[in-house]
Structures are given as C-alpha cells and as structure tokens.
C-alpha cells in the first residue's frame, strides 16, 4: 500500500510550482541588469585585438547574457525571504508566489551549466572558465556568503559585475591581459559609490531585513565619506585606457570631464547632512553613476568602431 494520499482541497495547492508564465521566468533573469552586462561584454569583445567572427562573438555575448541571467535567478532563489520584506523587491516572481523557489533554483542551475558549457564548446575554455567563476562568485561568494555578513559586501561582490568585459575580451583572445584587467577595474571601482548612493536613500529597506549595508552598520556619515574615497580612486582608473594606449584622446578628454562631474556629485553627497537633502544628493549621484559608466564604455566602443 502506498503511504501517500492525494487531495486537491487546498486552494493554494499549486504553490509547489507550475503557476509561472514564461514572462515570470524571464523576469528571474533580471533583464535590466543583463542589459548592462551585455553592453560591457560587447565593449570587451570590440576592444580585444585580433577580432572575432560575428557569429562566434554573438555566441559569446549570448552565453554571457544567459550566465548573468542564471546568476540573477539563483540570487532571487536564495534571497526570496528578504525580497519579500522589501518594497523594491516584494513583487519579484518568487515572493509574489508566481514561481516556486525550487523552480527558480533548477532554472538558474540549468542555465548556469548550459551557458558555461556552450561558451567552452563554441567559443573557448578560458572565457568559459571565467564565466563559470563569475556565476560562482555572484551566487556563492556574494549572495550566500558576504551579502548578509559584512558591509563590504558590495565592494567584493562588485567583482562579479566587473567580469563581463573581461570575459568578452577572453572570448576573442583566449587570454586575460592588462587591458581587460583595466576594464574590470573600472567597473569594480565604480560599484561601491553607485550602490552606496542607492543604499543611502534605501537604507530603511536594508535595515528592516538585516542586510548590513554600509549606512545601516557604519552610519550615513561614514558611507558618504567612503563614497568620496572610492570616487576619488575611480576617476584615475577610468583614465588608464588612455595612458595604456588602448583608448584615444576623445576618450581621455571626455572621461576626464565626466569624472569631474562624478567627483562633484560625490563631493555634494559627502558634504550634505543627513535628511531629505542627503537623499536628493544621493539620488543625483546614483542616476549620474549609471549614465557615467554607460558613457565611458560607449566612448571606448565608438573610438574602436570609428578607428579613432
């Protein structure tokens, strides 16, 4: 005799899965984050010496995009408990009940393996190893280990977001070189001021769920100071491509001007006392930081495309 009985008397019987639409699963891939990943990876591919067949380049981009999406899905699976309590994330597919946690875990795992293996078989194994490491870093090191333990979470976790141009570069050359490390460093140094600006005007959310973001643990004054320090380190790093000779005068001049703007906004955040004025300054820096990174990588791309 079986020791399992079946019934369908629970109205929420399907919470074990099977409810989500294809769009819900697509949302698990964090498409907005993915778009920045695709763009920076594309710049890595375009800048790398030697060139790549367009079909292979497209395949590399696709693998990077799917790998980034897969880590997003695994992140949402692991963080569903805190996502449910934060206004910004409460409507994500898992906390809202549209996708079951185990569905997201399987979905993310399968896509992780497929993206890295496809990269290895169709592009090269150096790029595949970097992609696999990036997924591991984002899911295991950032999401599972650091995020809930240290206010340095996004400083170290930011490395995961900085890898895509390096993977793109490796897809073309099969190697990791100084130039690709510089591209990595730009995003790596950009991440702390970007996320801490967000955390300044969202710190209530993080405090509620116990994520030790810098403003929650070290206070807003210290966060503003750290934003200023990292911004001051970021701007010289963005000028390295010109110094190392893989970017031209247009890039160097425009990036220096954009950097002055970044420093100005960071300075305003640093000198603004807590309260509504601080939120306004932090929102300004946050919005500018997205445009800033996009423009810097666009400049690199434009210079390469037009042979400048």
């Amino acid at each position: 005799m079986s020791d399992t009985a079946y019934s369908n008397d629970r109205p929420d019987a399907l919470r074990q899965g099977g409810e989500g639409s294809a769009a819900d699963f697509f949302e698990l891939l964090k498409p907005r984050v993915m778009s920045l990943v695709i763009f920076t990876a594309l710049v890595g591919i375009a800048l790398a010496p030697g060139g790549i067949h367009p079909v292979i380049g497209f395949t590399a981009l696709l693998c990077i995009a799917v790998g980034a999406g897969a880590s997003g899905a695994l992140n949402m699976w692991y963080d569903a408990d805190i996502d449910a309590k934060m206004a910004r994330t409460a409507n994500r597919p898992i906390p809202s009940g549209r996708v079951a946690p185990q569905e997201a875990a399987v979905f993310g795992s399968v896509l992780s393996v497929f993206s890295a293996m496809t990269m290895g078989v169709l592009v090269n194994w150096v790029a595949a190893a970097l992609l696999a490491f990036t997924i591991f870093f984002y899911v295991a090191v950032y999401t599972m280990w650091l995020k809930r333990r240290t206010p340095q979470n996004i400083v170290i976790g930011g490395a995961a977001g900085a890898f895509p141009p390096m993977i793109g570069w490796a897809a073309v050359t099969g190697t990791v070189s100084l130039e690709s490390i510089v591209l990595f460093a730009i995003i790596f140094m950009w991440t702390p001021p970007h996320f801490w600006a967000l955390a300044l005007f969202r710190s209530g959310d993080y405090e509620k769920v116990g994520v030790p973001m810098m403003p929650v643990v070290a206070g807003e004054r210290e966060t503003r100071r750290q934003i200023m320090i990292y911004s001051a380190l970021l701007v010289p790093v963005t000028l390295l491509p010109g110094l190392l000779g893989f970017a031209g005068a247009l890039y160097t001049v425009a990036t220096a001007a954009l950097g002055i703007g970044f420093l100005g906004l960071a300075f305003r955040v640093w000198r603004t006392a807590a309260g509504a004025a601080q939120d306004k300054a932090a929102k300004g820096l946050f919005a500018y930081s997205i445009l800033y990174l996009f423009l810097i990588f666009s400049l690199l791309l434009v210079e390469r495309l037009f042979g400048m």
Partner: protein
Amino acid sequence: MQNDEHGRHKIEAPVWTEELIERRRQRNRAIAWTLVAFIVLFFVVTIVKLGGNVANRPF
C-alpha cells in the same frame, strides 16, 4: 507536508484551471523554441568554424 487521518503524506493534486493550462502550454512553447534556437546555434557555429574546409574530408 500534511498527513491525512491514516498518517499518510498528503500530496496536493494540482487543480488545472484553463488559465494554468494555457500558462503551461506557453512555457512548453518557450522551452521548445529555446531548444530549436540552441540546435540552430550549434549548427551555424559548426559551419562557421569549419569554414572553407566544410567539404574537405575523406569520403
């Protein structure tokens, strides 16, 4: 998981409403198209990698 009056595990059988059936159909279609795209990708990349050597093999 709940137990019934005989102490057996109860597994809730899904109630397949029309809407849920349609969503499942939509998911299945998405998986099917993804697999087709995957096959096409491998085929195209193989041709690209072989390049001019596509017919250069012993018969």
